[in-house]
């Protein structure tokens, strides 16, 4: 079957090419790896999510290049006054892709598809729940099983979602890839054929591009979907050339073998900037790199000590040396691109003398501490080891002797979450642009052993406001609460906020209307290419 589909699509494309296909606009994206499969609900890596995104839509979506929520498959939604039900009005006349893997849809998109897509992840007795491993990581991470009481069809174009408690961030969550809407009819078609696992390998969606072919480690092909509800894409063919080596991606971009590339080597950026055929686009990343101090281990239980450490670390030098300028100093725990960013917060200035005094006043002398650094490069921290060494030197100046420590990456995170460290480096990349998606990392739920709050800091005032901000639905009210959270966390200083790194994307000058996504996505609907 697979071969027949491939042959059919190959023939189709070759006919296209032969019959004056010279006008066909192809855009090649040099991607960094092969996807696990094409179902966003069962994936976690950016690579896999990027590979499935052209095919699908969500109820609500992120406006390209921003974190603003705009209507997707739902034309509108309404939240009940008690915040417990959300009613979605679905778009009419939305078509599914036809001809992928032998499937021809007989109906338009409707409420059944929405129900199917959520119930696959929610209900353990759903016929597709166990297909492809059955681990719905993002769905679980966003607390959906706990939050989602039911999801019902009111009529063909109306869906009612009932929650167990009011939750304002859920709308932003529904714009994420895990909340992708797939075709219930296609699922049934494959189940009847006895090949449900193909559901995640040959994707059928409502998105701007239709899946054509995938060759592991080599290429993914899509073609523009003529009947796309948002209007046909400006390019005809979208090709992902899988190119794992960053230098090779750059060489391909230079040679015109691809038009957009992800994840450039920081060292190549300067040369890229000088290249006549390439534009290096950039955007402040939706991330934060920080140093957490474990408040359960004295003397880090003392606010003054934590503040002193904030003053003892020379972040400007770190920015220059570790980020090579490709980042901005972090004042708050959220990056300035997220709404509710509080610019009025007063940051700690680098002042080793004052830090020394404060430590002395707090009765801390000859402090010995460990400082953990992760063994891997992360988007928010290009070189944790170097950063740790610089901090070690800074802290030595105020009389703190630091021992550097590291573990294998999985082990590292587990031990940090168990609270074994005194000080440790970590960071976060946002999923959906909602402030809660960052601040939960400082909340009390995460401060328990094994939780994600690795400073183990649990402040009642902070926690109350954090919970309240989740429950109120007015954005203005939420903004005010998050602004307060930034004041509290700066004052209490459970972490040293280090930097928000910048995301760079080299793009061929032939490409127009490409937008760098703050969410780290690579999106091609709306992008055009000169012949």
């Amino acid at each position, binding site marked *: 079957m697979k071969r027949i589909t491939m042959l059919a699509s*190959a023939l189709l494309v070759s006919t296209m090419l032969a019959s004056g296909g010279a006008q066909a606009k192809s855009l090649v994206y040099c991607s960094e790896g092969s996807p*696990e499969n094409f179902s966003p609900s069962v994936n976690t890596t950016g690579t896999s999510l990027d590979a499935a995104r052209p095919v699908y839509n969500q109820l609500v979506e992120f406006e390209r290049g921003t974190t603003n929520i705009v209507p997707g498959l739902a034309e509108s939604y309404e939240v009940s006054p008690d915040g417990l039900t959300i009613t979605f009005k679905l778009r009419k006349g939305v078509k599914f892709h036809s001809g992928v893997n032998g499937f021809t849809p007989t109906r338009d998109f409707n409420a059944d598809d929405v129900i199917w897509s959520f119930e696959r992840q929610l209900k353990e007795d759903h016929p597709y729940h166990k297909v492809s491993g059955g681990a719905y990581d993002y769905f679980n991470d966003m607390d959906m099983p706990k939050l989602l009481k039911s999801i019902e069809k009111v009529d063909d174009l109306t869906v009612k979602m009932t929650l167990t408690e009011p939750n304002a961030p859920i709308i932003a969550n529904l714009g994420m890839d895990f909340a992708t809407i797939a075709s219930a009819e296609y699922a049934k078609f494959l189940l009847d054929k006895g090949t449900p696992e193909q559901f995640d390998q040959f994707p059928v969606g409502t998105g701007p591009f239709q899946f054509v072919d995938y060759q592991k480690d*080599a290429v993914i*092909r899509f073609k523009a979907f003529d009947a796309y509800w948002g209007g046909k894409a400006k390019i005809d063919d979208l090709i992902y050339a899988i190119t794992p080596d960053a230098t090779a991606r750059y060489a391909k971009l*230079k040679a015109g073998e691809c038009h957009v590339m992800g994840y450039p080597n920081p060292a190549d950026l300067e040369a890229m900037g000088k290249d006549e055929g390439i534009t290096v686009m950039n955007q402040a990343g939706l991330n934060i790199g920080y140093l957490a101090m474990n408040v359960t281990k004295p003397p880090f239980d003392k606010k003054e000590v934590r503040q002193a450490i904030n003053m003892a670390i020379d972040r400007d030098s770190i920015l220059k040396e570790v980020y090579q300028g490709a980042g901005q100093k972090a004042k708050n725990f959220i990056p300035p691109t997220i709404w509710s960013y509080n610019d009025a917060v007063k940051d700690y200035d680098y002042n080793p003398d004052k830090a020394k005094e404060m430590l002395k006043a707090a009765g801390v002398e000859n402090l010995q501490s460990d400082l953990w650094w992760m063994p891997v490069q992360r988007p928010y921290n290009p070189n944790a080891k170097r950063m740790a060494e610089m901090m070690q030197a800074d802290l030595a100046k105020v009389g703190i002797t630091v021992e550097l420590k590291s573990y294998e990456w999985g082990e590292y995170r587990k031990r940090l979450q168990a609270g074994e460290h005194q000080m440790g480096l970590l960071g976060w990349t946002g999923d959906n642009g909602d402030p809660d998606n960052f601040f939960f990392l400082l909340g009390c739920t995460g401060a328990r052993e094994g939780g*994600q709050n690795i400073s183990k800091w649990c402040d009642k005032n902070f926690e109350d406001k954090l919970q309240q901000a989740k429950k109120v639905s007015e954005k203005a009210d939420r903004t005010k609460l998050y602004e307060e959270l930034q004041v509290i966390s700066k004052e209490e200083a459970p972490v040293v906020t280090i930097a928000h790194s910048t995301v760079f994307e080299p793009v061929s000058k032939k490409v127009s209307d490409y937008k760098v996504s703050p969410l780290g996505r690579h999106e091609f609907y709306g992008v055009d290419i000169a012949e």
Partner: protein
Amino acid sequence: MIRFLLRRLALTVPTFVALMFVTFMMIRLVPGDPIEVRRGERGISPERLAELRHEMGLDQPIWKQFVDYVWGLLHGDFGVSIITKNPILQEFLHLFPATIELSVCALLFATIIGIPAGVIAASRRGGVYDQTLMGLALTGYSMPIFWWGLILILIMSNTLHLTPVSGRVDLIKYFYPQVTGFMLIDSLISGQKGAFPDAVRHLILPTIVLGTVPLAIIARMTRSSMLEVLEEDYVRTARAKGLAPYRVIGIHALRNALIPVVTVIGLSIGSLLAGAVLTETIFSWPGVGKWLIESIGRRDYPALQGGIMLISSIVIVVNLLVDLTYGLINPRIRHAR
């Protein structure tokens, strides 16, 4: 001959058992497990971790996992990838043709250039040709592959625009199905105009890069073997008979000098299949080397175990065949105890 064959076959059994054990254990000695490694800063609750480990059978005692693994292997079941959920054998067979295609081309390149270079160097011993060729061979042998690949791309593709940077096919111009997995064949089958030359062009740089080290080895081996043979009495006799130098060297000497060279070529097939990792990475070549490296990063136990077993088996079989041919050529080997 039959006894020789049986003896050699019997020797492979303990090799396979050791292989199974080593691949299984080595991967589990690497810190980190497949579930946690994917989670990054997001973390995972201990309950959920236990649940997933149970589903993957990772909570079983090690010996039980090993027995299950061996039992599966004996039934031809290599397991399913933790990451993609595809059968390992299917993934391997999908990627292996690309590796074979590249390895064969590299070996042909190395042989076609290496043997004549060695012969020329030997026949002009100590002369300029000899010095230059052997100097080049030494450089080739010590060339850092990654650097060599990138330099070639920079010169051949980015500056002279003679070859494509990477991949196996011009993705914008050509699209044909993978029938055999060998692009040289598939491009011909496709009937698309220009597809075959395009596939050849894509093979040039990876072939040179992967073939450089074997080329150096073959050239040096041919030279030293030739020098030895040229000292033999029958060569002197042939010369004394007044035969033309090309006949002496090309027919009388080369034939005998080639025996050790053939062995070296046979042995390098194994290292080419397994050692194409760097070349595959630089040139985005969708082969098994790159797949294995990725599996290490992802702690995809079944993929690693299965992949290494399959490659090792092929290497063992190739070595066996080389031994057999050697036995055929040289009866002394056959009868040695």
